[in-house]
């Protein structure tokens, strides 16, 4: 054991007798200032401690066989709803045709962009009223009907509705236009309605499911059809009507599950939709024009402080547009655009193998916070001591000891 006197030498905090201590006015002011600064620093430390930061982490995406949601809300001011079709094709060979007929609502717009209601016009089979059992509509040469008289009634080749005629025309690779002079279409009122709508616009809203691989989705005019040569659209009516084009406003386009309203506004909606609000209205004639967006999708997970987890996706995008006739245009004098294709709005998508996990965390831990507070207090006191010594010395040397 140490003796008491020995132990005393270990005292790091040697005390001064109360009598020999000198208290000065400036010392008091400095002490008060120190208190204020300390309080300010402690508050800022507290705010810093309460601050929630987003710590992104990068992992390899190991999810398999999941579908990716697509949400779209796009306005085409000079493209009637009836002619618009949406197809999705991916590198696995899966083709989803005419998606606008399911899962999407089409709102008809007049020339000023006012809604005309979402009653979508369909070439429906129901309008055919089989009053006459022996009725067999003509296919106008698109199908071989010459043997109809020789075979029984069930095997006859007939085009009962406007839609049947249209299908027959597509299969024969014939231009259908607006169905004028085709009895079935005139009877169903299709011709009148199509021509009535030619000056209208269309707003498409809805969602679809994509395979998580590379692919394309496109809005194009006319009915889509698939034959051994590839994917085509019936452009006959579009090509005839020169005021139609694919100028568009992207109100919203996002991939992945929608971020719930609870999570939105907390940084979750950041960067998930770089194309939102984009308006494409080039000065030139865009009747035969193709707009493309190239997107790269990065799966993203948001983990919130309150244990809520949102699986969604972000994407980066770039854009391109070209006239279908190819060649150089005014904007790109040194570029020779490729020729061909069909008019429309194309979105190419590609998945990233990497996944981002955005985790909400406190900026500091409790121990870090306490440590920071202690260093702040200690630091301020140390600065105060130094300041006090300097001012004391300065005063003493300037005015002498008495005036203090």
């Amino acid at each position, binding site marked *: 054991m140490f003796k008491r006197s020995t132990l005393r030498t270990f005292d790091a905090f040697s005390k001064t007798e109360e009598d020999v201590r000198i208290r000065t006015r400036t010392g008091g002011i400095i002490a008060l200032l120190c208190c204020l600064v300390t309080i300010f620093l402690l508050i800022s430390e507290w705010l810093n401690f309460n601050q929630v930061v987003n710590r992104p982490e990068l992992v390899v995406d190991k999810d398999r066989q999941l579908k990716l949601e697509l949400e779209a809300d796009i306005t085409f001011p000079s493209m009637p709803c009836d002619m618009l079709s949406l197809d999705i094709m991916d590198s696995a060979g899966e083709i989803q045709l005419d998606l606008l007929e399911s899962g999407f609502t089409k709102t008809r717009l007049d020339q000023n962009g006012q809604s005309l209601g979402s009653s979508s016009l369909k070439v429906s089979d129901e309008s055919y009223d089989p009053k006459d059992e022996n009725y067999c509509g003509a296919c106008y040469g698109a199908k071989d009907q010459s043997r109809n008289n020789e075979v029984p009634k069930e095997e006859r080749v007939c085009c009962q509705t406007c839609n049947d005629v249209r299908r027959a025309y597509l299969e024969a690779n014939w231009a259908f236009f607006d169905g004028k002079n085709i009895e079935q279409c005139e009877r169903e009122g299709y011709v009148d309605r199509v021509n009535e709508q030619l000056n209208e616009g269309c707003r498409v809203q809805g969602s679809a499911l994509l395979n998580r691989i590379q692919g394309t989705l496109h809005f194009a005019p006319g009915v889509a059809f698939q034959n051994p040569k590839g994917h085509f659209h019936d452009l006959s009516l579009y090509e005839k009507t020169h005021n139609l084009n694919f100028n568009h406003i992207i109100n919203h386009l996002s991939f992945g599950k929608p971020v719930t309203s609870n999570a939105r506004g907390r940084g979750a909606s950041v960067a998930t939709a770089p194309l939102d609000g984009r308006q494409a209205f080039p000065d030139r004639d865009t009747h035969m024009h193709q707009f493309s967006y190239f997107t790269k999708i990065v799966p993203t997970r948001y983990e919130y402080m309150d244990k809520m987890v949102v699986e969604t996706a972000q994407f980066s995008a770039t854009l391109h547009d070209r006239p279908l006739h190819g060649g150089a245009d005014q904007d790109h004098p040194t*570029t020779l655009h490729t020729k061909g294709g069909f008019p429309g709005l194309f979105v190419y998508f590609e998945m990233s193998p990497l996944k981002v996990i955005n985790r909400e965390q406190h900026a500091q831990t409790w121990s870090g916070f306490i440590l920071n507070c202690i260093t702040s207090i200690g630091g301020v006191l140390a600065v105060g001591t130094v300041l006090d010594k300097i001012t004391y010395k300065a005063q003493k040397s300037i005015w002498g000891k008495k005036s203090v």
Partner: protein
Amino acid sequence: MAGLRSFDAFPKTDETHVKKSSNGGLSSIFTYLFLLFIAWTEFGSYFGGYVDEHYEVDDQLRETFQINMDLYVKTPCQYLDINVRDTTMDRKFVSKELNLEDMPFFIPYGSRVNDMNEIVTPDLDNVLSNAIPAQFREKIDTNNMFDEEERDAFNSCHIFGSVQVNRVAGELQITAKGHGYSSFMRAPPEEIDFSHVINELSYGEFYPYIDNPLDSTAKFVPDAPRTTFVYDTAIVPTIYEKLGAKIDTNQYAVSEYHINPEAQQGKGPIRFPGIFLRYDFEPLSIHISDVRLSFIQFVVRLVAILSFVIYTASWAFRLIDLVLLTCLGPRWSLLYQSDSKSQGILDKDPSSK
């Protein structure tokens, strides 16, 4: 001794002859503050700061990006054709936007011939100090500067400049006219030699001093001049940020291979001699930033650390003194030396003066 004294570059003034003013005191306080501020900018990141690296998806819609290049190709300019093809299937005539100048071929000293550069990942400070934006010079008409004989030695082409291309996956192709794309002229095969030197190849804004993987490398193939060189690059947009300075640039990974199309004839697809630069983008960009304490917090922490050091030092001093005192006797005490005037700064009490 007296002779030596005249060499003193640091003449001292006696304390009594120094005149102190309150203005001078104020300005020295400002000087100290300024010094502290410089200290903060220089090593502020060591006090509670760190280099933050995170990944974000680019939320900006960008249509184009820039390729900066400076190449020597051992084929006269008139036979060269440069195009960009990308997934949009457009063909861009890059020869019209780049500068092409005839020159005699040489490989600059320090270039790595038929070899790759060592892989270096520059740190934040390195990048920021080298990020000086620049532009390529204008094309100079060299025809009038040299006479006929000298121009005969001009067997190669200096290709330099920046081009804007679509920001999608694509390929920049340097080929000989008539070999590949159809052209009015067909370059004579004996004039074609795709030996080349890459002085600079970078994407994004042009910062010539930032090192890129392909900078100052050369490919010299005298045996097979009509070789196909393919550089496959994957571009990762990178943002460096420190003290308010922000550098938006691109890093890239490169893999390189070359094929002799003449030796490969009949096997596989037809290839044309040339230099092919493929590029593709990563959707994620790396954001490297320097995170540090605010200036006030830095000062407080600095002083706290200094005072901590002083306390520990005084404590260690007492401990050593105690050891000396107990082991060697009171004569060795550092603390209670009767003959010394000064007791060292640690125990000096300002009020005792």
